[in-house]
């Protein structure tokens, strides 16, 4: 890639040494792991090489998990989502947020709403690898599912924003997303009498403001949660909620398949950042419009001239901290509701959960042997798993148990514009001017 100079190539060696030391001091392993995006120390049978291992190992994951137990929150039933103190919930706010979520007037040319790229029928996401984007553009990543998004500490694939309240405007305003400006979107809301009444009722201010619109949308999104999956029921005591195959899958999930290392806790994610070896999206090589957006993103996210000219993949967390060890790292997503949110990975590199499992089984390679564009940062947590076909099946049925029924929603009827002044009022003003 030409992005790493020689001085930086010393870093893997340094980390290797550190890692060896850490292994000698096994008690430190869990601490290092907890830091997430640092190459972690792992159990003695786990390969130290940051590049994929040559042959399948049979890591003593059970041992590893046991050792790291205090650091790995177990799977748990999902509780209610956190509600920020500065945006309390109310039925009226949620009802308003629902209307706004589906209203295309909160976008540049009033043609696309939040729901256009986060469709209830498409897993509250968008069923293409790369999202459709604003008219005249295409996005450069897949849409993140909005369902259950309320549990994330950081939103977007690389965690670039800290709340639903700040995610909504980033999406509504982004040039390849909503491309709306605050002033015109706010003005539109003020010319819709039903919104004027509702905003006044909910927020106690004379006019709708755009920031309150984001708050209402965030409140609506906090109702889009699923807490009654088979796994939740099982963990709450209904031992019939998972069948034998799913229970075998659960053992694999928590052991041999190593999923639990990152996809842990009630929300099935530690919300840390890793490069797991997902290969570059093919679309950038095949679609001129996607190439336009690819370069725009490099420009817009603040890269060096050299990087703008040479980079050929999504650098993920790097854009946030400009640390080369963050290249190609993305936040661990939840596995909840994934039954409905295909395709998977940041640019939809995999169409099915089967493909995803195969990818992990191969140690972070796709079926053609492709892997990350940033091998320097690939996490050693990803190893060949040596799963049998039966085991893969078991794992799949368990992962499907992390999704309940599909949650659908009818699009609401949107309130119309109305002139703010009557002709008579304008005539009076004309005479008096």
């Amino acid at each position, binding site marked *: 890639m030409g992005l790493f100079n020689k001085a930086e190539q010393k870093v893997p060696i340094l980390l290797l040494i550190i890692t060896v030391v850490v292994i000698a001091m096994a008690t430190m392993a869990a601490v290092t792991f907890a830091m997430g995006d640092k190459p972690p120390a792992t159990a003695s049978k786990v390969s130290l090489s940051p590049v994929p291992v040559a042959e399948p190992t049979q890591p003593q994951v059970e041992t590893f998990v046991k050792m790291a137990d205090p650091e790995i929150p177990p799977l748990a039933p999902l509780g209610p989502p956190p509600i920020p103190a500065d945006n309390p919930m109310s039925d009226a706010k949620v009802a308003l947020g629902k209307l706004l979520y589906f209203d295309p*007037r909160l*976008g*540049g*040319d*009033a*043609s696309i709403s939040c729901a256009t790229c986060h469709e209830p029928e498409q897993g509250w996401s968008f069923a293409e690898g790369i999202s459709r984007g*604003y*008219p*005249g*553009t295409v996005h450069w990543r897949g849409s993140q599912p909005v369902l259950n998004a309320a549990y994330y500490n950081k939103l977007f694939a690389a965690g670039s924003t800290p709340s639903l309240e700040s995610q909504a405007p980033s999406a509504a305003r982004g*040039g*390849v997303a909503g*491309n*709306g*400006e605050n*002033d*015109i979107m*706010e*003005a*539109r809301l*003020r*010319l819709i009498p039903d919104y004027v009444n509702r905003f006044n009722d909910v927020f106690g201010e004379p*006019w709708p403001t755009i920031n309150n619109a984001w708050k209402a949308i965030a409140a609506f999104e906090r109702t889009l949660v699923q807490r009654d999956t088979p796994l939740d029921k099982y963990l709450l005591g209904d031992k019939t909620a998972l069948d034998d195959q799913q229970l075998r899958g659960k053992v694999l999930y928590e052991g041999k398949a190593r999923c639990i290392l990152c996809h842990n806790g009630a929300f099935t994610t530690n919300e840390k950042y890793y490069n797991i070896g997902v290969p570059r999206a093919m679309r*950038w*090589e*095949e*679609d*001129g*419009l996607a*190439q*336009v*957006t*690819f*370069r*725009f993103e*490099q*420009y*817009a996210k603040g890269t060096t001239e050299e990087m*703008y*000219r*040479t*980079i*050929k993949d999504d650098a993920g967390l790097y854009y946030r901290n400009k640390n080369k060890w963050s290249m190609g790292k993305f936040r661990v997503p939840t596995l909840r509701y994934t039954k409905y949110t295909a395709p998977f990975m940041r640019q939809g590199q995999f169409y099915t959960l089967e493909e995803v499992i195969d990818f992990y089984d191969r140690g972070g390679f796709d079926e053609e042997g492709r892997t990350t564009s940033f091998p320097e940062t690939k996490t050693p947590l990803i190893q060949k798993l040596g799963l049998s076909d039966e085991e893969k099946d078991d794992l799949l049925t368990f992962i499907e148990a992390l999704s309940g029924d599909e949650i659908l929603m009818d699009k609401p009827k949107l309130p119309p*514009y*109305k*002139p*703010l*002044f009557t*002709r008579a*009022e*304008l*005539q009076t*003003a*004309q*005479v008096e*001017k």
Partner: protein
Amino acid sequence: MVAIVTTRQCFLAVTLGVGLAIAGQVVAAPEIGPLPVLKVNEARAELGKRLFFDKRVSGDVGVSCATCHEPENGYANKDALSKGYPGNKHFRNAPGLINTAHKKVWMHDGRIGTNLNDVTREMITEDYIMNMDMRIMQERFKQDPLYVEMFEAAGLGEPSNGGVRKAIPEYLKTLTSRGSPFDKGTMSASAKRGMKLFKGKAGCVACHNGPVFTDGKAHNTGVKENFDVWLDPQRHQAFIAYAAFMGIKNYMNLKRDPGAHLQKHAADGSDMGRFITPSLRELKYTAPYMHNGMSKTLADVVGFYNRGGDNDRNKDARIKPLKLGKTEQKDLVAFLLALSGEPLTSSKHVWQEAYPVEYPVIANWLNVPN
């Protein structure tokens, strides 16, 4: 009585509210006459021409500059109020762009008085006009092999938003009036009588002076509001966005166009409703008239001034009934029409080739620099 004073004195007089009590200081306005010839970089103007008619300059590729500035209408528009960006509409009349390169101040409210590079940027990026993130535009044009060639030929390197902002103004230089009866000395007897009125009894030349027929200053002439600005929520929303952004007080209740008020924000509102004097060249093609398209014909415009404008407490004291007879009014219209030249609608000024419908894929993408 016609008072011809310097524009500076006009401004002072109006500001101080002392009307025309400065008759002793009357001096000549800049002479009306032919336009100077502008030096044009051909390659750059050709690039600007392609850009001007290219919808990819707008956010959702729905509109080009020419959507509102149409060649057959003198690069203005038949609509009283301009189309604006899809999803909203505009709240003012699209001004004609012929001779815009000869001006020193732009926009009906004069908010941009620097150069056309800045005006171009404002039009492309303003959310209710073209709503373009210019960083995306730049990458679009890097993906168009003909643009890559044309930017290079124009000495602008690879396609860039800065390059666009240089090329479009260069093209606008080519939109210069040529061949009007006034410039060629072929005016009719009626038009000649009209010119005499223009400079004399009708007093037009006080503000419409110099080769472009504008003093580049803002005046309140008492034009009625166009209620469609407020009765159509899609226009009103753009108006609200504009007024809020410009810091106009009480913008939600505003029922008049503040115009150049945004330049100084006079606390008493006495500068409300001033608009930059428009050029009078090419009016044959640019109806309707006024900043809000409230005058459909030139006869309407002359009638408006003949009755001393309409009511406005801030109206310039020089706008008074002119007492022109019917023939005089016709002569004045004849003179105004004599300021229009040949239409600029041929391929010399209009990009006529089709634009690509797709961005061709860059082959061997992995191995070539971005």
